[in-house]
């Protein structure tokens, strides 16, 4: 069963076309990776899926479980099961991690007609997720991402993902800037969440992440289009030959 279907997606920022016709289908339970050079539109795609309003959709459609994702507000997309781990998580002074996560979880539960969790039920649940990501309990009462190191911020994103249990998890360059230990922790968190009910979209610049989270499919995004798709072995080829290889192939195919 298809969870996400992107057809001929075109998106602009400030009149500048970034996505130039992206097609992608992700079935329930699959892990896909999108790789590509800087400026190819990877993060734009992630943010469009998370419904950031700064992007203007000029053509195409995106269906999430058959529903029109492009008509949803960010909070609706979240409640429908879309989660994006931010490339640059935002610091929010004055709101504790614990409060923020419970507010978020209860908002999505309410949307789905589920009962809200009180603080007493929520805390053990959150602590368990934090242990999974090697996050110290003192992070519970610290303001969201405030003063966190880069690695702590990325781990905190995965804690949020574990709490919200999305149907579609998008990781926007979560591996960028992580050392190998932090990368292992993040990968373990993500791998724990792999399941038959959940699809994952890994957006990355580096093949290294895919050693730890092995995708079912790899796609290469260049200049706003997916130019090549294949299995995990495609990532290795890219690592070896560089992105210019796919660009050259594209030109040959077009010519």
């Amino acid at each position, binding site marked *: 069963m298809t969870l996400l279907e992107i057809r001929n997606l075109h998106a602009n920022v400030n009149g500048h076309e970034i996505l130039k016709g992206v097609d992608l289908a992700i079935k329930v339970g699959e892990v896909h990776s999108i790789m590509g050079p800087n400026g190819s539109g990877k993060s734009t795609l992630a943010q469009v899926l998370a419904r950031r309003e700064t992007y203007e959709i000029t053509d195409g459609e995106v269906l999430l479980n058959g529903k029109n994702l492009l008509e949803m*507000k960010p909070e609706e997309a979240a409640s429908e099961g879309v989660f994006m781990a931010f490339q640059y998580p935002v610091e929010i002074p004055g709101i504790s991690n614990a409060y923020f996560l419970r507010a978020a979880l209860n908002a999505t539960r309410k949307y789905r007609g589920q009962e809200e969790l009180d603080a007493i039920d929520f805390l053990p649940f959150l602590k368990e997720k934090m242990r999974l990501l090697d996050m110290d309990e003192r992070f519970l009462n610290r303001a969201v991402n405030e003063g966190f190191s880069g690695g702590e911020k990325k781990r905190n994103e995965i804690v949020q993902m574990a709490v919200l249990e999305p149907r579609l998890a998008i990781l926007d360059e979560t591996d960028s800037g992580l050392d190998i230990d932090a990368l292992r922790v993040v990968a373990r968190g993500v791998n724990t969440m792999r399941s038959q009910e959940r699809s994952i979209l890994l957006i990355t610049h580096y093949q290294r992440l895919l050693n730890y989270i092995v995708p079912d499919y790899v796609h290469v995004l260049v200049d706003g289009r997916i130019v090549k798709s294949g299995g995990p072995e495609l990532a290795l080829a890219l690592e070896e030959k560089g992105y210019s290889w796919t660009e050259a192939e594209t030109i040959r195919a077009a010519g």
Partner: protein
Amino acid sequence: MAIRTAEQLHDYLSAFDELRARTQDQPRWLRERREQAFAEFFEKGFPTTKDEDWRFTNISLIAKTHFRTAGEARKEVSPERLAEYRVPGAACQLVLVNGVFSAELSDLGNLPAGVEVTSLSQAITAQGEALARHLGTCVNIHRDAFSALNTAFIEKGAYVYVPRRTVLAGPICLLFVSVPGDSPEITQLRNLILAEEQTEASVVEDYVTLGSGVGFSNVVTELVAGENATISHYLIERESKSAINVSTLAMRQARNANLSSHSVLLGGRLVRNNVHPVLAGDGGECLINGLFIGSGTQHMDNYMLVEHASPHSSSRQFYNGILDDHSHGVFHGRIIVHRDAQKTDAKQTNRNLLLSDHAQVDTKPQLEIYADDVKCTHGATIGQVEENALFYLRSRGIDEDSARRLLLLAFANECLERMKNQPIRDYLKNAVQHWLPVRSSHNTMANELARTWEEVG
């Protein structure tokens, strides 16, 4: 140039004549102080925006309005009506209605031996000597017309005395209830807080309005802290949106005293909040913390005058403003470091959020440094609710109105978290939540988030 109209001065002159006739048998020092202050006020009149201290605040509304002196209104206030204004765990609560002390409404139950919390008029009779020594010593009636006017009418207010080495766990709460009549009324309130050496206490001044009349509270609080005293002062201005409030907190702190002033401005149509600590002893510390939240056409002016008069003292100013609609906020942060105040460490931060295109804030640092070995820094920011943060919260499922509100609460929380006393902090969080601008009425989640806000921090 002073604004002058014969009628408006006549109002104050006849009120002063009435007071003079009525207080013939009061101590001479007090009568003389009043006379001197009235002469000062009468000669100079009210300030205008040409006066640097009043550049951003036009007080012609005050100068032009005929105010009657607010009268007795005790009968219009029921104890039930005041229930929401009680801080849990308070050491006591002194209630003044239109400046008049009410024993029935107050709760002065279990104060430790030697601690005095009374009305100022009682203290004038019973504590004449202490009052003569301190009353009027912290304010400058030559520079500030409202302090002069207030000093001319010293009569109503609160007196707090904390004897040497006394530690009070619960706050001393002073509730000033304004019940203005059909025509505009003025209440002049003069408070004196004396904390001897090695004392620890918190004092809360809470200003509220009952009814729909227009009230003008002209307030001066003098706080004198002895050596090594730790005193926290809280001001809550939440009078009605037609009220006028001009309030001066003048503090003098001895060696190693640690003072904090926390101001939360929520109500009032025209509000001026003067905070003036003088760090007179070596090693003094002062925290000046404030939050102002304006909407509609509210005008809130915060005028800080921090004087470092002795070596090794430090001051920290943090003011956060949230301004919506056509409201106007002012932060004027003046720091004076006197010639002998070497090793002064003074910091000032003012942060503002503008929620509407019509809201306005003026922020102005003013450093005057006459010593050569000091550290003084200042910074100010003016911004909007950050779109990045908003999207972050929304991408986790929190709807836009709730996310916006949550970010405002978080911004306010930065100030509230500096308040060490938890019951007061919680009490103020409730007040802030109640006054925070609400964007949408159809949204129920915003209310739910508000209800559980005690866990935010």
